[in-house]
C-alpha cells in the first residue's frame, strides 16, 4: 500500500441548473486569449446531446482512453511505435470544425457607421481568418434542445438501443458540467511523447508543462473526455489546471467557487497508488466503479494514516482528508459516480446522478416514485456513469430518495420508509451537505503546498512584491 493524496471534485447533478456560470468564470480566468478562445476547460452540456467537441464520447472514432489486451492496459490510440507513425498525420485528431470557429463581431461599425436609413449591424468575423463568416455552429449549440437532432445523435442513446423512444411525451434532459477529471490513470499523460504532461505527486493535479510540450498532440485524441486542447497560436497543449495556483493557497477552483447552484464539492481523497493499475485493468468494465471505490481509503484508518505519512503526505493534507466532503459523498454514502468509467482512466471528478424531474408521467401523481420510474431513464444514466450497470444507478438514486423521505418524515410527519440503509441522522447530515451545501462544508482544502495555514496565507495576501522591494527575499 502506497497512499497518495488526490484533490477530487463532486458535482451534484440533481441541482445543476445549466447556467454556465462555471464555464464563463473559467473562461475569463484561463482561456480568453488568442489561440485559446475555442477552449473550454470547463463546459456544461445538455444531455442527451453530442457535447463539446462534437460526439466526444464516440471512442470508435477518437480512440480515446485505455483498453485491456491480453490482460494488459494499452492505449486505444495504439502502441508507442504505431503512434510514432502518426506524427506526420494523425487520423484521430479532432480539428477546428469539431469544436467551432471562434468569432468576434465588427463592433466598430456601430460607432463609425455614417448616417444611414437602417441601423448599422455588427457582423461576425472569424478570429482565425479575420474574414467575415456565417455562424453555423458554436459551443452549446444544442443547449436545452432535448429531443433535437443533436440529442438523437448522442452515442449513449445508441448504446442503450431501442428502449428509449424520443417521443415528445418521453423527452428528458439533464445538464452535465465537465472539466478535466485529473484521472488516476490519465491516458493523456501516457500518450505524451515528450513527457510534458504529468501528474503532480502532492495533489494529483494533471498539468502540461508549456516548456516541454512539443505539440505532437497525442494527448488530444488519447484523452477520452477531450479535455486537452491544442492552442493553434502557441502550438502547445493546454488543459484545465484545477486552478492549481488557487489550490496551493487553499482555495477551490474558480468553477467551484462561483457555482450558483452550489453543485460542486472539493476535497482530498487518499488513494492506494500501488493498486491503480490493477483497478483499471479488470476485464469486466461494469466492475471498474467498485474498484475505484476500493482505491479510495479511509482517512481515519491508522494503517492508511501511517502509510500516507511514509509517502510524504503532510499533516495538513491528512487533516483535510479526514474532513473531506467528497470522501463522505463518494465512499461513505456512495452517492457519486465516475463519468464513463469504461474509459479506464479512473476519473477523479464524480457525479451525483440527478433524480429530477421526479415523476415520469404527470398522471402518476406521486411525489416520491420508485427510482426506476424517473423521467430520466436509468439505462441512460448507467451508460454515462456505470458502464451500463443499472443496479448501481438504482441504488444510488434510492439513497437520494431515502434522504428526501427521511426529511419529509421529519418536516411533515410522513411515515419513515422501510429498509433504510443508514441511520436517520446520517440522512440529515446528507441533507445538510447536499441540500443546504454551505460553502465551508462543500470545500475543505488544505492550505496547500506552501506549508502555511489558511490564517498565515491570509496575512500574506497583497504582501508579495511589496514586503521586499527588489525581490531580495
Amino acid at each position, binding site marked *: 500500500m502506497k497512499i497518495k493524496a488526490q484533490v477530487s471534485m463532486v458535482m451534484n447533478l440533481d441541482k445543476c441548473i445549466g447556467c454556465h456560470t462555471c464555464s464563463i468564470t473559467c473562461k475569463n480566468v484561463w482561456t480568453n486569449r488568442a489561440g485559446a478562445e475555442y477552449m473550454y476547460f470547463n463546459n456544461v452540456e445538455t444531455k442527451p446531446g453530442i457535447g463539446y467537441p462534437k460526439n466526444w464520447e464516440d471512442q470508435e472514432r477518437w480512440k480515446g482512453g485505455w483498453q485491456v489486451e491480453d490482460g494488459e492496459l494499452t492505449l486505444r490510440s495504439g502502441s508507442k511505435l504505431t503512434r510514432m507513425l502518426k506524427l506526420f498525420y494523425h487520423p484521430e485528431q479532432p480539428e477546428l470544425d469539431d469544436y467551432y470557429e471562434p468569432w468576434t463581431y465588427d463592433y466598430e461599425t456601430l460607432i463609425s457607421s455614417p448616417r444611414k436609413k437602417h441601423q448599422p449591424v455588427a457582423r461576425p468575423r472569424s478570429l482565425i*481568418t479575420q474574414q467575415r463568416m456565417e455562424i453555423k455552429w458554436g459551443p452549446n449549440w444544442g443547449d436545452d434542445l432535448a429531443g433535437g437532432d443533436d440529442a438523437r445523435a448522442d452515442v449513449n442513446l445508441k448504446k442503450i438501443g431501442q428502449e428509449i423512444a424520443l417521443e415528445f411525451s418521453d423527452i428528458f434532459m439533464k445538464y452535465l458540467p465537465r472539466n478535466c477529471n485529473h484521472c488516476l490513470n490519465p491516458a493523456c*499523460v501516457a500518450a505524451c511523447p*515528450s513527457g510534458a504532461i504529468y*501528474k*503532480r505527486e502532492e495533489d494529483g493535479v494533471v498539468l502540461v508543462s508549456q516548456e516541454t510540450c*512539443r505539440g505532437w*498532440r497525442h494527448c488530444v485524441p488519447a484523452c477520452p473526455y477531450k479535455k486537452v486542447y491544442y492552442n493553434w497560436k502557441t*502550438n502547445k497543449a493546454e488543459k484545465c489546471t484545477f486552478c492549481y495556483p488557487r489550490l*496551493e493557497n487553499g482555495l477551490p477552483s474558480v468553477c467551484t467557487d462561483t457555482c450558483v447552484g452550489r453543485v460542486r464539492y472539493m476535497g482530498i481523497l487518499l488513494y492506494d497508488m500501488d493498486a491503480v493499475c490493477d483497478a483499471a485493468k479488470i476485464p469486466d468494465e461494469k466492475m471498474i466503479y467498485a474498484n475505484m471505490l476500493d482505491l479510495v481509503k479511509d482517512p481515519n484508518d491508522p494503517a492508511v494514516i501511517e502509510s500516507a505519512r511514509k509517502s510524504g503526505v503532510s499533516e495538513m493534507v491528512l487533516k483535510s482528508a479526514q474532513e473531506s466532503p467528497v470522501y463522505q459523498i463518494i465512499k461513505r454514502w456512495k452517492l457519486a459516480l465516475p463519468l464513463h468509467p469504461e474509459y479506464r482512466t479512473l476519473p477523479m471528478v464524480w457525479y451525483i446522478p440527478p433524480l429530477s424531474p421526479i415523476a415520469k408521467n404527470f398522471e402518476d401523481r406521486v411525489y416520491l416514485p420508485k427510482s426506476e420510474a424517473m423521467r430520466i431513464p436509468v439505462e441512460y444514466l448507467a451508460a454515462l456513469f456505470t458502464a451500463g450497470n443499472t443496479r448501481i444507478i438504482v441504488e444510488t438514486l434510492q439513497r437520494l430518495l431515502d434522504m428526501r423521505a427521511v426529511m419529509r418524515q421529519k418536516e411533515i410527519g410522513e411515515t419513515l420508509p422501510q429498509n433504510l440503509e443508514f441511520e436517520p441522522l446520517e440522512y440529515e447530515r446528507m441533507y445538510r451537505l447536499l441540500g443546504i451545501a454551505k460553502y465551508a462544508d462543500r470545500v475543505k482544502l488544505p492550505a496547500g503546498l506552501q506549508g502555511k495555514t489558511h490564517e498565515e496565507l491570509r496575512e500574506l495576501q497583497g504582501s508579495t512584491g511589496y514586503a521586499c522591494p527588489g525581490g531580495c527575499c
Partner: protein
Amino acid sequence: MSGFLWGALPYIAFTVLIVGTAYRYWTGERGWTTKSSEFLAKDSLKVAGPMFHLGLLMAFGGHVIGILVPKSLTDGVGISEHLYHIIALAGGIPAGLLFFGGFFLLMQRRFGNPRMKVNTSTMDVWLYLVLFLTLVTGFGGTLMNAVGLLGDFNYREAISPWFRSVLAMSPDVELMADVPLIFKAHMVMWMITAIIFPLTRLVHCLSFPFEYFLRNKIVYRRK
C-alpha cells in the same frame, strides 16, 4: 571568394547551427514546437504531410550515406561506380519525387487555405524559399548529372571528399573548383539552411521522442 565559400562558410554555418540551436533551446523552449497545423486544415495534410516527411527523411539518409561512405570503401567491397549510381538514383529519385510532391502539396495547402495564415510567420515564408531552392538545386543537379548534362562530373570525387575534409577540420577548397554551378548553389543553399535553422520551425526535427520508448507510462512530478 571560393576560400570563404568553401573554407569558412561551412564552419560559420555549423557554428550558428549548433550554438544558435542550443541558445534557442535554453532561452526559448516555450516556443519550441512542431508548430502543427493539422488542427486548422486536416484533410489536406493526409497525403502531403507523410509524403513530404518520408521524402525528406529518405533524402537526408541518402546524403548521409553518400557523403560519409568514401569511394574507396564501396570500391573495396566490389560495388562498381555504375552500380553505385544506379543504387543511388533508385533511392534518390523516389525520395526527390516524394519530397518535391509533398512540398508542392504542402505549399498549396499553406497558401491556399485562409486559415493557414495564423500558422505562417514571415520567417516561415523565408524558410520555404530557402528549402525550395535547396531542393531544386539538389534534385535538379542530380537529374542533370544522371542524364549527362554536366559532362563526366562525379560528385563522389569532388563534393563528398570536400565535405569530409571540412568535417576533418582541414577544408580542401581546391576540390570544389570544378564543381558545376548548380551543385555549388546547392552547397550554399544548405549552408544558408543551417544558418537560419535555429530561427525557424525546423528545430522540431530535433525533438523526435526517443526517450518516450524508455519511460514509464504515467509521469509523476513534484511541484
